[in-house]
């Protein structure tokens, strides 16, 4: 498992999600802290491409050996792509939470929502 890290180029939501903003699109995933709390991820049940995400609402489920957890949307938008690689390698969420462990890509419906998210140092500070 990777060491704890919170990259500076990402935005963070209090429910332990990250967003990599690219214009009016974003890639979403869960933070190092979230995957560490979950333990070994064994299943990710993605939303359908085309479905709508609402900021602060659950949009998918992620399962560790022991438990099921909701994944909360850090931003609102429409799903344009889901990480198909996780169906064979769900452990990527643990091993590379900001890279191969990404969950979905969305087209943002309200770019101004990004301003509500935390930067890396604020998020990391919220964990202690």
């Amino acid at each position, binding site marked *: 498992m990777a060491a704890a890290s919170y990259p500076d180029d990402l935005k963070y939501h209090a429910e332990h999600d990250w967003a990599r903003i690219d214009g009016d699109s974003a890639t979403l995933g869960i933070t190092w802290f979230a995957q560490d709390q979950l*333990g070994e991820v064994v*299943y990710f*049940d993605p939303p359908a491409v085309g479905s709508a995400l609402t900021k602060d609402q659950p949009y998918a489920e992620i399962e560790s050996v022991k438990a*099921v957890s909701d994944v909360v949307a850090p931003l609102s938008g429409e799903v344009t792509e889901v990480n198909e690689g996780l169906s064979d390698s769900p452990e990527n969420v643990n091993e590379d939470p900001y890279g191969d462990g990404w969950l979905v890509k969305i087209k943002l419906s309200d770019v101004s929502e990004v301003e509500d998210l935390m930067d890396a140092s604020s998020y990391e500070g919220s964990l202690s």
Partner: protein
Amino acid sequence: MADALQRTPLHDRHVAAGARLVPFAGWEMPVQYEGIRAEHEAVRGRAGVFDVSHMGEIETSGPDAEAFLQRVLSNDVTKLKDGGAQYSVLCQDDGGVLDDLFSYRLGDRFLTVTNASNHESDLAWFRKQAEGFDVELADRLHDLAMLAVQGPEARGIVAGLADGELPGRFKTATLTVAGQDGVLVCGTGYTGEDGVELIVPAAGAPAVWDAVTQAGAQPAGLGARDTLRLEVCFHLYGNDLMTTRGPIEAGLGWCCKEDTGFVGADAVRAARESGPAEKLAPFAVTGQGIARQGNPVLGGGEVTSGTMSPSLGYAIGMAYLPAEKAEPGTEIEIDVRGKVRTAEVRSKPLYSKET
């Protein structure tokens, strides 16, 4: 305000080993150290050691000890030989299961191991049922620690630390282990692997833990304990066993000897003769998803345990199913939080070394 969590004599060992500690049945217990999968695989392939000191012990002694246990326990206690181990259930009058337990006969006394979540209620039940019997009941929970050393290399590890020969399966021996006197070594376990359980005077538990881990047993937590037991279809009280279900529907008729007249025997006999409406059956998920405890089965029934199986690589579980659907090979559908998931009823155990 919640009561403070109890800690086992090995608490500082768990902290030092980097365990993730969680509340479990009133105890602060390690759910995992390195990771559930690694610990699971260590037990299947080599050896792991579990701290199960949260499990309770009730000691029964006195002239009527055997007659009393024959009354409360479902199995035939007269068949339990000195130094032997016997599995049974504790039933209420209507046959509902209060607990499932191992009892050991040690000379003129018996030691009965309880589930942590049931220890206090079991003790109260024993005391209530003991009226009219000349027995002494002693709560040994805090006197005794319990370590389960399990896996193909487990016996070798413990044998190298013991001053005598280890007992066979379902037998016990009182030995000196890692310099600690009076360790009850039991040829029992909850993983489907060979191994032993060590019932140790509490003060000696850290020395035994240190010796066993230094000899190669990997610390394993309750997370791996659950995946290991479910792969071999061992019941977990509170999941697969409860007061609203009887031993016949749970598939535990083999440890019920109604002719002994145990509490609940009439109800158990009636259930055996009429056949239960529902039966506990193992299943494998054949498509996507992981069924979990509480998920309803379409057409009737309910999942009581479910997980991703580390050894098999697919999701497994156990469910109470209408009797006609409980045959191996039957396709079932499970409502997993609003999504229909497909599964197939399998035979016990779901995992075995040969497969």
